[in-house]
């Protein structure tokens, strides 16, 4: 079975594998940070007191690498002020109070000619819809779809690996909205003019893989479902591309350097929504899981606060020790449940039972070296980071680390390797400026 070198096998804990996607209650208010993506922050287009409708563009940026933001509910703009942010801690956000109804903006209209759009038109729609990579990195999708002319893209891979433990939102979406996902995928392929199209799925999601495969065969589509070995981080871009195509994305390079684009399942669905339904990115599926009474997959309006969703999942089970935006391997621990779901929020994970072992000296067992999918020496980088010798940390290729967390997961001395390597990376980048 296809896979990559290294990696770890954490317990799946896919508690919500069989839970149908439930539509979350209409939130009373939403917090929409002006920065939810990689790239330039947006400038607000509305002011306090304005009435906005669902799907109305409320913020944008002139920069190419950015993505506009749309109102996810209808109601009154309460203000534009600093508010909790799940990645940045705090950020300027547009806060909207719901009018209790769902009033759509005029711009949201079904498209009849969706099948006949040109590549350029598809990319423009994607850009206007504010679509970003929904796997977590939140890189603006229209930028990915506009590679420089010298980079010929021949391969498109839909990422349905969902290798993070606990998360099941992509899995459920593949089971419940396969037609939309396939249509979205074909739109992306058309925009890129890519002829090899794959869907990569880990073999612990045989149900989704078999379902999509049967569907594609029946419809005679030129799209191949590839079953991958269940191993973390199988869904990391570089690992996925290598497993599916045997191509190696160059160190510090991008998938387009080897003619590939990887797109998340939910991104494909968002592209479908934007192109066929005329709906900008205002909602996404989020797995709310861990120590909550009823773990669920929910279709959530962007900007809904974590605590509201946790409430709809029966509340906390025991006293929460961590609330995480994302999964347990790469997610970010929050200081409160007040933070909103943003475009890149794939999961809300509550952990009540956390073992904390004291950090010990490295025993040089080499487990971190064995599991690193980038083939680095995490313990060496971490030791130089501790000594503040960032030049040496750089010579051990610290910048190639994408912080998957395998090293720290496997470490028997419980050394927070990712934290130390992150610190080194920041310092190395500063020194290079």
């Amino acid at each position, binding site marked *: 079975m296809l896979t990559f070198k290294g990696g770890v096998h*954490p317990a799946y804990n896919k508690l919500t594998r069989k839970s149908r996607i439930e539509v979350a209650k209409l939130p009373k208010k939403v917090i929409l940070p002006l920065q939810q993506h990689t790239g330039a922050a947006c400038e607000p287009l509305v002011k306090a007191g304005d009435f906005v409708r669902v799907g109305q563009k409320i913020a944008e940026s002139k920069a190419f690498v950015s993505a506009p933001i749309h109102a996810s509910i209808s109601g009154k703009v309460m203000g534009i002020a600093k508010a909790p942010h799940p990645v940045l801690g705090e950020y300027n956000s547009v806060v909207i109070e719901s009018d209790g109804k769902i009033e759509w903006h005029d711009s949201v209209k079904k498209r009849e000619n969706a099948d006949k759009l040109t590549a350029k038109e598809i990319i423009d729609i994607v850009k206007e819809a504010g679509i970003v990579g929904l796997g977590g990195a939140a890189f603006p999708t229209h930028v990915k779809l506009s590679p420089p002319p010298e980079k010929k893209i021949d391969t498109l891979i839909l990422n349905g690996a969902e290798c993070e*433990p606990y998360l099941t939102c992509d899995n459920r979406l593949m089971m419940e909205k396969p037609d939309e996902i396939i249509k979205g995928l074909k739109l992306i392929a058309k925009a890129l003019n890519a002829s090899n199209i794959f869907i990569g799925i880990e073999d612990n999601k045989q149900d989704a893989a078999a379902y999509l495969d049967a569907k594609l065969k029946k419809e005679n589509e030129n799209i191949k479902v590839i079953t991958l070995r269940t191993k973390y981080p199988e869904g990391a871009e*570089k690992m996925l591309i*290598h497993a599916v195509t045997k191509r*190696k*994305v*160059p*160190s510090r*390079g991008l998938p387009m*350097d*080897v003619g590939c684009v990887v797109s998340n399942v939910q991104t494909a669905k968002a592209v479908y929504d934007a192109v066929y339904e005329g709906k900008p990115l205002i909602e996404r599926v989020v797995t709310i899981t861990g120590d909550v009474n009823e773990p669920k997959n929910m279709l959530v309006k962007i900007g809904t606060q974590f605590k509201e969703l946790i409430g709809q999942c029966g509340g906390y089970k025991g006293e*929460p*020790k*961590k*609330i*995480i935006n994302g999964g*347990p*391997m*790469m*997610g970010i*621990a*929050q*200081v*409160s449940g007040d933070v909103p779901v943003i475009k890149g929020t794939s999961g809300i*994970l509550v*952990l009540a039972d*956390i073992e*904390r*072992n004291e950090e010990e*000296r*490295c*025993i*040089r*067992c*080499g*487990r971190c*070296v*064995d599991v690193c*999918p*980038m*083939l*680095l*020496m995490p*313990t*060496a980088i971490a030791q130089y980071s501790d000594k503040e010798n960032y030049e040496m940390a750089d010579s*051990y*290729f610290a910048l*190639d680390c994408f*912080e998957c*967390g395998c090293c*720290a*997961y*496997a*470490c*028997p*001395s*419980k050394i*927070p390797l990712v*934290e130390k390597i*992150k610190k080194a990376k920041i310092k190395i980048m500063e020194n290079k400026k």
Partner: protein
Amino acid sequence: MSLIKSASPHITDKELTERIECFTILALIPAVVASLYFFGLKAFFIIIVGVIIAALTDILIDKLKKKKFKIPFGAMVTGLLLALTLPPTIPLFVPVVGSFVAISIVKHVFGTRSHIFNPALAGRAFLVAAWPVLMSKWITPDGVTGATPLGALKIAGEKIASYSQLFFGNIGGTIGETSALALLIGAAFLFFMKVIDWKIPLAYVGTVFILTFAFGKDPLFHILAGGLMLGAFFMATDYVTTPITKKGRLIFGVGCGLLTVVIRLFSGLPEGVMYSILLMNAFTPLIERYTRPKPFGYLKFKKVEK
């Protein structure tokens, strides 16, 4: 509600250093049982003394360093390994000194987990230098004084043990090295629990096998006799003193094998496992430096730049 704000990952594997050390002790139980079976009470006292003195020395030094008390499983592994490399005839003051030297000088002087040499083997090397005669007085399990199979091969050029004797351990030698079977059972357990990796032991034993065959000797005899099994699976796999890189581990194993064969075939000594591993320990930092792995996609990166 007070939330912990720490960096990812938020889950970790259940593996702990103590667990690894305990597994190593468990893996040595078959060898301990074999030593008791073949050498009886003599072996029992050597092991008890070796382990207890190592543990006490470790506790004492940690106390002097004002460290929090922990059960010294690591030191117990060292004491046990050292005891297993001693002849059954050894007076009990020798393991006392050996364990003390191994823990105090070889291990602690360099700072926690920064030592260069395998403590058990370096402790043994000290004993060989201090009491060379006591350290080479061998008896068979029946109590008959005589050379070890490797010793007999060196001096008289004759094989005094059959393969099955070597395999089960009914021969002269140190109390823990004679039974290849017992050591292999322990090694299998360590592989299964993922405590050790195949690279060093396989490269080590494989190199000895191939080289002795190439020099027209009996390869099976050479891998079963002497301390090779104990050394390859339990000493050359010590984490602190061996390379952490994948390629480095292979080179380390091959180096150990090469040196062992050179010593056994071309020097005055019948056995070379201890010195081979210690020498390779000294090369570990160098090996590691030159086997630093290139990151995923590195070669292509170079080409793209040009």
